[in-house]
């Protein structure tokens, strides 16, 4: 990656608006939202259900374009309103990583294959992809379960494999939607700390939608959404780093 790309924020969402329906049924899910997340920065996105968190996440994840506004990733404009400025699927493949509440691992692939497939669809040679997948699983502490199918993994292990898959193509931005909701508090915190480690060691920006108030100290910044608008968290705690 060039220096310019490295210096640019991982994501800059500028004046995003998302409107569902029209007339009497019109719902404004995002109302002029702007958010910038830098490289090596991990941001928590809080807010009650229906506040627009998931809408914002899918908008910046290039899977649900905003009605208006602009999205730049790594300094490159990718969406202008609903108009794609790049091949979104290719851009997603090369620059974004996703983690969800459920690990969403492919059930017929082993742990290592779930990570490997993300690289193979990005044209990485199978042998090279295999090696990197093994390295990532080792980095995330699940190297002893690489050959297991998702069914044979615990929730925490599945989530680690999902994180490894999100990291597979060295993304600029990782988007996580309530990744610890299905985990106990100990494993939930472990996963949050993992995101922090990933952000700092892989030069990635990380946005985590969470309700878990106990792990907020892990984040560099906390923002809150309410009624489709973004505002700083009232009791923001910033990790000392």
């Amino acid at each position: 990656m060039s220096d310019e790309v490295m210096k640019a924020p991982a994501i800059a969402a500028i004046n995003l608006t998302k409107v569902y329906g029209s007339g009497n049924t019109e719902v404004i899910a995002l109302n002029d939202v702007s958010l910038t997340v830098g490289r090596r920065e991990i941001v928590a996105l809080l807010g009650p259900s229906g506040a627009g968190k998931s809408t914002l996440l899918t908008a910046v994840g290039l899977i649900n374009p905003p009605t208006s506004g602009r999205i730049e990733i790594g300094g490159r404009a990718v969406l202008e309103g609903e108009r794609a400025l790049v091949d979104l699927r290719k851009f997603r493949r090369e620059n974004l990583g996703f983690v969800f509440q459920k690990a969403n691992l492919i059930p017929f692939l082993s742990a290592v294959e779930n990570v490997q497939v993300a690289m193979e669809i990005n044209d990485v040679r199978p042998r090279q992809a295999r090696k990197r997948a093994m390295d990532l699983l080792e980095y995330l502490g699940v190297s002893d379960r690489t050959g297991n199918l998702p069914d044979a993994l615990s929730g925490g292990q599945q989530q680690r494999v999902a994180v490894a898959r999100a990291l597979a193509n060295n993304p600029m931005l990782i988007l996580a939607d309530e990744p610890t909701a299905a985990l106990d508090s100990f494993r939930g915190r472990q996963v949050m700390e993992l995101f922090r480690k990933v952000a700092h060691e892989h030069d990635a920006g990380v946005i985590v939608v969470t309700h878990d108030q106990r792990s907020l100290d892990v984040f560099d910044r906390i923002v809150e959404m309410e009624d489709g608008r973004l505002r700083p968290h009232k009791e923001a705690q910033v990790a000392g780093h």
Partner: protein
Amino acid sequence: MNLAVKDIKHNVGRFMLTTVGIGLLLMIVMGMSGIYRGLIVEATLLIDHIGADLWVVQSDTRGPFAEISRIPRSMKDRVLAVPGVSRTRSFVSHTIQREHHGHPLRVVVQGLSWPEDKGEWIPLISGRYLSKGHYEMIADKSLGLELGEKLALGKDTYEVVGLTKGMVGSGGDGLGFFTVSDALSIQFDQPGEALRLERAARRERIASADLGRLQPSLVKRAAGLSSSIPALSPQAVNAVLVSVEPGCCPEKVISVLSKWPDISVYTTGQQRQLLLAGMVDKARRQIGLFRILLVIISMIIMALVIYTLTMDKIHDIAMLKLIGARNRVIVGLIMQQSVLTGLLGYLLAYWLGSYAFPKFPRQVIIENQDLLALAVVVLMISVGASLLGVWKAVKVEPNKVLAA
């Protein structure tokens, strides 16, 4: 990494069951095709094997297979006198049904023009050809008769001296080859009482006529054997088979015979056509249409199976799309599974059919061209059937993952 194979390995039981189901369905399609071929082969078997160039039959009939034809036995000698004709044979064929060991036995009685024709053209699997003018027969294996077995038909008993295989009539009944005389005896066999009554009636008719009153010896002769009365024609045959001299043009013989008002003449090709376009046409068309229907049903079932398998994976497909998988990865996953299902189903159908079809009561003939055509159809069905799944998969939005 081949996602299709990985998925199959993970759901091997379901895949096997699906493949077995498709395989059985394809076996029926394959079998129906074989029955269709078998029907044609059985119908034309005799025409193809008997080695005649021309068939002389009763005037204005399409005999001897498509309809009844009767011509005098002397026709054989009349036709032999035509320039260009090298050999003539009488042809007699009719089906009988008798009880044999407590079971119905249907035999197509086929007359051989003894002594010119001893049945040398019949492919024997055991025994010998006919060596006597009476009381011997060559039987098709499907009749269930053993070599040396004796079969009573009418007033006579016939010994099985030779066995053949696959020689059946258009109805699928096994052929039994006799001399023409024996075949006619079997056909026109009458009980003694009927013969006595016929002779008595004949005697009364001539006795009451002037001719009988003037010549009493005629009354005496009328009460005798039918064959001893010159005024009564001998039993008719169904056709005369004509072989044309080598180097002679059959058209020349036809042009002579076609001028005779008491007969019609057909080439072997025309005789074949009469059978296929007439006698077995409806059965042939019915099986042909049924075969098409089966192919359509197979396509619908395969499409449903592939669609269901795709829908089971739709969440995983959405996930693959979310992480940026190209459409060709998704299409490959669905189409490879579909083609693999079709291919394995086809091989299974062939394997099962090779055991099952020979046990069918009528011939099931699987020809290479039919196998190839079915393979192409299966490939097309596999690809076509997967299109519904592909369409659904390509349409699915990646954010379906979030909704789960």
